């Protein structure tokens, strides 16, 4: 038993508990201190992940390989950005509302991060489930964190009820798989399912349930219904967090489960993933057109991006997985950046969410408008921004596999979805009405938006390191 495999997770969890205790004994709310400490803990965990041992551990319950390392680093960065995004907002809530700046907030993000790290390094269906639950429970609480507003409570409750249902589906699927294949370990399953004769209908049903549960967690059609409501209702920093790290974890988990233990059943699950992908892309392309609330708009946009990510998964090759990983990294930076701008949309201390509030931003705040332009064009997949490269590496996988219908539909969806992105740009620049300036941005938001914009804009100059890291990570799954 190689217990050192999980050192980053163990250290991070211990840090979380220590910070929790420390927070209780603070005289004030201790939010700022705890946030700083959480960021530091995430950094330490990152170092441990990079320096840590590789290989299976805990009798095949978890595994540390370059795939999980890649994903864990991405998740840690995304969580760090998530904490950073919340720091100012939580201390200055909207007038008449309770402060969100309590020390539990960063600690919850930390525990969610531990859960996500377990998700991506799971090599057993049970570990997987533990990770999913740890992550989900933390985020349920976060979504309802603004407990004196009905919207936030509603979001939390909705997310909890539907999430619990999805967890049930997932667990049911796992039990069916265990019942019909006799194993929960990924490598045992892969070995057992290599023989086509051993694949029974019951197992396929179990697989479908697992896919359904994971689709819910990654907000893909037809299990996307919660996304717009939760995105809209949750406090904006929570939405920002939900849009980044958990997406990485859910998609990475999806990839690992389908490629690893169920890799031999690609013929069975590929059609499911293709349908999910097409549904997500098209639904988001059309549904987002009518949205006036920027958070809902981004929710639908995220559904679409999950659709594109699914293309890479549907390809079921190392090229496809590589595309998924590249896409996830670029998506984290785009999303964190755009949400930094959304959080910065405040006038006289009140948060604004309508895209009409962005009218005239090009004049009143050129820097923020420029950053938004970068993110929106990138989300639409216009070169030279990183979003284009993400799409490039995803679609190359589909083309490689000859999945032309999927590729053409994906391109069509991305053409349609460009409309709602450029509509926001239109409001910011083409409206002659002089916009009223937003409140002065706190430093932390400028840093996140700036970092995101710089990464998104200049990714094309040096894409090779990320691409080769993603390639190395993807290859591990196909050994």
């Amino acid at each position: 038993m190689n217990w050192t495999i999980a050192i980053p997770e163990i250290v991070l969890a211990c840090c979380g508990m220590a910070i929790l205790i420390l927070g209780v004994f603070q005289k004030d709310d201790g939010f700022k201190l705890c946030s700083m400490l959480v960021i530091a803990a995430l950094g330490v965990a990152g170092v441990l992940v990079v320096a840590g041992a590789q290989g299976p551990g805990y009798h095949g319950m978890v595994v540390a390989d370059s795939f999980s390392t890649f994903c864990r680093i991405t998740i840690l960065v995304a969580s760090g950005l998530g904490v950073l995004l919340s720091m100012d907002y939580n201390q200055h809530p909207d007038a008449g509302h309770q402060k969100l700046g309590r020390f539990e907030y960063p600690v919850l993000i930390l525990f969610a991060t531990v859960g996500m790290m377990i998700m991506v390094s799971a090599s057993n269906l049970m570990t997987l489930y533990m990770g999913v639950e740890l992550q989900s429970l933390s985020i349920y609480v976060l979504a309802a964190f603004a407990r004196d507003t009905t919207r936030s409570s509603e979001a939390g409750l909705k997310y909890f009820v539907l999430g619990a249902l999805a967890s049930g589906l997932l667990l049911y699927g796992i039990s069916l798989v265990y019942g019909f294949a006799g194993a929960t370990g990924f490598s045992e399953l892969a070995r057992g399912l290599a023989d086509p004769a051993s694949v029974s209908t019951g197992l396929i049903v179990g697989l479908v349930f697992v896919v359904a549960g994971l689709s819910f967690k990654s907000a893909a059609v037809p299990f996307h219904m919660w996304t717009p409501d939760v995105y809209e209702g949750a406090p904006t920093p929570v939405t920002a967090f939900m849009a980044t790290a958990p997406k990485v974890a859910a998609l990475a988990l999806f990839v690992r489960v389908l490629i690893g233990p169920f890799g031999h059943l690609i013929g069975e699950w590929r059609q499911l993933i293709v349908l999910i992908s097409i549904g997500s892309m098209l639904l988001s392309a059309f549904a987002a057109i009518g949205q006036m609330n920027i958070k809902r708009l981004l929710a639908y946009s995220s559904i679409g991006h999950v659709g594109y990510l699914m293309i890479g998964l549907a390809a079921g090759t190392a090229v496809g997985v590589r595309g998924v990983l590249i896409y996830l990294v670029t998506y984290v930076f785009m999303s964190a950046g755009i949400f930094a701008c959304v959080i910065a949309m405040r006038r006289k201390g009140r948060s604004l969410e309508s895209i009409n509030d962005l009218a005239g931003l090009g004049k009143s705040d050129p820097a923020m408008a420029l950053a938004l332009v970068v993110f929106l064009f990138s989300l639409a997949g216009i070169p030279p921004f990183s979003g284009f490269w993400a799409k490039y590496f995803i679609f190359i996988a589909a083309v490689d596999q000859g999945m032309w219908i999927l590729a053409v539909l994906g391109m069509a969806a991305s053409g349609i979805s460009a409309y709602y992105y450029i509509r926001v740009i239109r409001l910011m620049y083409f409206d002659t009405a002089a916009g009223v300036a937003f409140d002065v941005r706190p430093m932390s938001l400028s840093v996140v938006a700036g970092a995101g914009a710089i990464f998104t804009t200049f990714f094309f100059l040096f894409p090779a390191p990320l691409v080769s890291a993603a390639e190395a990570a993807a290859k591990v799954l196909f050994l």
Partner: protein
Amino acid sequence: MNQAGFPLLSMLTFLPLVGVAIILTIRGEEAVVASNARWTALWTSLLTALLSVVLWAKFDPSDGGFQFVETAEWLPAWGITYKMGVDGISLLFVMLATVLTPICILAAWETIQSRVREFMIAFLVLETMMVGVFASLDFVLFYMFFEGVLIPMYLIIGIWGGPRRVYAAIKFFLYTLAGSLLLLLAVLAMWSAAGTTDIPTLMTHAFSPRVQTWLFLALFASFAVKVPMWPLHTWLPDAHVEAPTSGSVILAGVLIKMGAYGFLRFSVPMLPDASQEFAPFIFAISVIAVIYASLVALAQTDMKKLIAYSSVAHMGIVTIGIFTFNAQGISGALFQMLSHGVVSGALFLCVGVVYDRIHTREIARYGGLSDRMPAYAITFMLFTMASIGLPGTAGFAGEVLVLVGSLKISLWLSLLGGMGMILGAAYMLWLYRRMMFGALDKIDLKGILDLSPREIAIFAPLVLLTLWMGIYPSSFTGFFEASVGRMVDHHQAAIGAATKLAGVLR
């Protein structure tokens, strides 16, 4: 290293971005910022134009291959390199872009009064993208520039355009994007077939005929929108009418050439069989474009719209020329593109001149201008004649070469394509008559002023170019003869091989 001894093409491409960086650092009062932004943009673009003259001077016209080639590692393991280079076909387009940009910046000197800094930034970024499109020798690099053009152009139309600018900008963006996405699929398919996106390698790669058909359709979707070919042309009149004058000039002068350049650089050399197969189809819609757009132009009451439709007609001639696959046709198409770039750009500038004074583009609101604006009338006359294709002006050589080339294909093609010249004479002369001649009975026209020194400075190089291209066309055709010859030989060889193969199989 290339014959310039330094990375000339990269400098040409990215020098405008240096100007952008300088403009971004300008601080101070609004008027000062505006004036500094204008001067910085002008000097940057002039410097770029000067550099492109070096390119022109050092270019060896007798070599039909790629020159000034630069390579740098980008994504080496995945077949993508940063590779720049020009041949005779692309060289003159690079020149066109670098020459028209300072003219456009001068044209915007007084007309753009709001957000001058942003305008100049957008224009310089646009220049980088345009030069990049014509100078890149890697398909992914090309695609980046090709689609990157959308961003500054969308903003130029949308922010500084006319009353219906939002509609026009979004239409422009979505039309072009929809086509480009299929182009991206084609890039990916070519990559997966050939393992590289290097353009010279792809040109020699033999794609199987069935694949070629699909690739051709995907490329066609993108380039036909950009050209624009009938029936995908409807974005162009809207974009032209709403864009500010300099936006229209660059749109007509350079951006719509990108589509035809795409046909020349990708469709024809890389997909010879499919091009051959689709040529009748292209001829058909080109002939429709020529005749239909000319007739529509006759009916226009808005000057810019009229010239926009004339662009559609002229580009129809260009696409006919490209798909004749013979040296005359392709040379004619190239020449026509260059002359159209200069002449239609100049015509849009002419419209801008009176629009700045009277603030209307309604043809009926003008009349008798030759009385008050003799210099303007002469300039406009020259460009009108060049647009018609009068011998001695830029428009002549290209159209004649295309007609000669198409005569080798079929008499009817030549005849119907030639209709464009006749109809072109009709709508342009009629436009000229309605604007310049007749009684000067509109009160606000009585005090109209003739060309200002700034405007003369704008028109002088264009007048010069128009006459030069008309009187001594071989100083331009000489540049692309070798490349075109190579392209034609390559095409004939590919087609010959395919027919031979078919013969063997039969």
